[in-house]
């Protein structure tokens, strides 16, 4: 038992020490994980392509001018059997999107971290966002 405790503490210590390493995103060569932008708009196009699908969101500014954001997501095969399809994403509702912007300064280009609908349901990179209370609210 004592050995097990020692091992567990070692794991906790390893975990804590390793946390800064979590910033090493595999997409970090392209997107800035330390910055987040939030936009509101409507999904106008989805490119169901390898190696990553792209979701395009039309965002209107105060003057009525539309900017189309290109948002990278995951490889198409990740969606296999999930029920999340191109048609589901193209549902004409207003969405709020958070994204990590491009490191190279390209405007309106980012990695999508969360797409939220007005009724509370989400498509998120973080499992914690699919919280049951949030889902109930969405019903």
């Amino acid at each position, binding site marked *: 038992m004592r050995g097990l405790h020692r091992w567990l503490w070692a794991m906790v210590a*390893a975990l804590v020490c390793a946390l800064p390493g979590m910033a090493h995103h595999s997409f970090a060569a*392209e997107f800035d994980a330390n910055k987040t932008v939030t936009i509101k708009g409507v999904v106008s196009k989805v490119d169901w392509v390898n190696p990553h699908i792209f979701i395009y969101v039309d965002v209107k500014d105060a003057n009525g001018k539309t900017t189309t954001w290109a948002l990278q997501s995951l490889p198409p095969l990740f969606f296999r059997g999930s029920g999340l399809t191109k048609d589901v994403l193209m549902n004409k509702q207003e969405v709020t999107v958070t994204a990590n912007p491009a490191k190279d300064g390209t405007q309106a*280009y980012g990695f999508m971290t969360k797409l939220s609908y007005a009724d509370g349901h989400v498509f998120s990179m973080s499992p914690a966002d699919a919280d049951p209370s949030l889902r109930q609210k969405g019903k």
Partner: protein
Amino acid sequence: MGLANHRTLTLGALAAAVLIAPLGAQAQTNYAAEAARNPGAASKPTPRTADGHPDLNGVWHHFFGIGTIQKVGDSFTVGGAFSPQSGALYNTPLGDSKPPYKAAAAEKVTLLDANQVKEDPALHCISPGVPRIGPPHQIVHTPKQVVFLYADSTGNQWRVIPLDGRAHSTDPETAATYNGDSVGHWDGDTLVVDVTRLTDETWLGDNGLFHSRRLHVTERLKRVGETIQYQVTMEDPEVFEKPWTLSRTLTLQPDALEEAAPCVDNDAGHYVTKEHHDNTR
């Protein structure tokens, strides 16, 4: 295939696995996920074709299409073989040995690996080629030939492998290609596929594992129940000290192979820094 995804299990990855576990996601390889879909597969009967050879027909592997987006209530979230924390596939290491590069070649591997996001051909929609494309996703087995089908992230691929005893093409005008020139024969119950004429434009894995035009690949497939023991040996006397062999166990899958989505390299111009982008098979 996760071919040559041989980076050591770092403390960070270990910690990520510990961190993910309570969230209910499973840290596992595609191969383990596929095995779980057909319990006891190796103990099932081994069907044979009319000519007595083990029947290799079937869908055996799905690349990494193991349902890594999950529906939770009305929401969708990431799970399976993907870590939301690290943004990377955290397939557990497949226990591969280290590729036995000669010293001079190893230096080039290090250099290519450091620039992987720019240099890795398969990350930019170029065919991974044999053997990086991995074991066949589907096999169509006839008495005179077997056909390997792949729904790869770079596009749909096929290899026609004659079993009629012919030798490799000796036509000097025949170009080297991504999937090479394959001929097959039976060694008892094992299908042996010999591959030559492979282009040196491909890598053997996503860590800068380049090879020369002298690459010679031998694949061995042995059906055991509803599994296939797949072994691939790479010989390249120009860059390797000795042959390099990797093994995988494939499991017969219940569903059909899906056509791969087209590959469009939207990222190429946007890489600024040099963090590795996992691109395993």
